[in-house]
């Protein structure tokens, strides 16, 4: 109990004094996850819209696979990315292993199915509503996708948020491909795991508070951004 209390007070002090390590790790975490989120959204949202408006032979199978991949174990993703990026792997020449890029790649793989699947479900509802009108007006496939993404932006924001939540709290995959190297690939979750192992609860707790705070702050920001048309309720 004493440990915990001492840890808490030190954690608060680290936060207040804007401890250099703490700030650095937090910013890196945010940078990696936001990059992964942007890339994943650029892949997942159009994919979800395409799956909605286009009927092709393997559509059902792709949707089922996406749903299955939502539960992909991060450790396994980390392992696969590691093998692919390692020196002897097919992409080894790029030298990405143990860099933030490797972590971004792993996070993208983890959250693309999640974002695409949630986005697909809400876009499907929107499409059933819009279908007749868009067909009647002769919208091209590209225009249909654009319209769905634009008008379904709120639901898509929710999907992206779910992706962010999963990515920022993820530890297994980025530990493997990033290596938790100080001043290079150490992020909030991997640092917490390390400091806890070392018994330095103060730093671990402080990092934990920042992690929770970041998640809340980003959620609130996105929520606020999504309300640009304030009087509108949809």
């Amino acid at each position, binding site marked *: 109990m004493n440990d915990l209390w001492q840890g808490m007070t030190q954690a608060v002090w680290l936060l207040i004094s804007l401890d250099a390590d703490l700030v650095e790790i937090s910013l890196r975490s945010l940078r990696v996850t936001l990059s992964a989120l942007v890339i994943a959204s650029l892949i997942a949202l159009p994919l979800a819209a395409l799956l909605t408006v286009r009927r092709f032979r393997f559509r059902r199978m792709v949707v089922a696979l996406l749903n299955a991949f939502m539960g992909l174990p991060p450790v396994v993703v980390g392992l696969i990315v590691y093998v692919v990026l390692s020196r002897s792997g097919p992409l080894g020449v790029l030298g990405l292993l143990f860099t933030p890029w490797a972590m971004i790649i792993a996070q993208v793989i983890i959250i693309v199915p999640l974002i695409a699947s949630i986005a697909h479900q809400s876009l499907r509802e*929107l499409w059933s*509503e*819009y279908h*007749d*009108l868009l*067909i*009647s*007006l*002769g*919208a*091209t496939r590209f*225009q249909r996708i654009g*319209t769905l993404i634009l*008008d*379904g932006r709120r639901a898509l924001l929710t999907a992206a948020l779910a992706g962010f939540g999963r990515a920022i709290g993820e530890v297994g995959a980025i530990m493997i491909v990033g290596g938790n190297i100080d001043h290079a690939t150490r992020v909030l979750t991997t640092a917490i795991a390390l400091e806890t192992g070392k018994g330095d609860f103060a730093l671990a707790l402080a990092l934990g508070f920042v992690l929770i705070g970041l998640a809340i702050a980003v959620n609130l920001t996105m929520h606020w951004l999504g309300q640009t*048309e304030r*009087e*509108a*309720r*949809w």
Partner: protein
Amino acid sequence: MLPLKVTGAEIRRRGKRLIGPVDLLLDGSGPTIVIGPNGAGKTTLLRMLHGIERLSAGEVSWACRLEDARQKQAFVFQMPVMMRRSVRDNIAYPLRLDGVSNRAARAQAEDWAVRVGLAGKEGLPAQVLSGGERQKLALARALVRDPEVLFLDEPCASLDGRAVHDIEEILRDTSARGTRLVMSTHDLGQARRLAREVLFLLHGRVHEQAPAGEFFEGPSTAEARAFLKGEIVV
């Protein structure tokens, strides 16, 4: 683009024939009013003519190229689709699909909003509109591309007298400007008020096609006579 010639057109879904075989020539001047008991195939006929139902047999051919014909016609659905945008952007949407600049499209949309009686509501989200206002929006959105042929599927269903009056005014005006109206209704009073030509549908076929005067004076078939008298035709 008229005359529209339909030969032996049929629509079957899941082994059941919804409509047909239909042979029909649409020429001269409108409005053409489609009447008939529930389930006679009024909606399916209009959707077929508009080209948003796949034909199982037969042919629907315009007097011009199909792409041109598609561009010059519009459809107003019984349940108008309210896109999750402002009234202005809803009306502007078909123009945006045509590549008109945002500014020009919005200016035209505002002009149309005033013409259909939605002045002052341009900035509201479309989904807060009442039933009558929604139908007016749908009309404006259909008319903004200046179509030569306008299909309307019971546009006044479940509207009160005032809204029906307003919409009929817009329709008369539209017809006078040379747009050919093809409209279904279950309201015989409305059919009498608007029709120049009547299509009486029964069991998925065109049972009788006649100029409005002749039809309402004395229909040539027993079923149409019974329908006009308000008897239940099965």
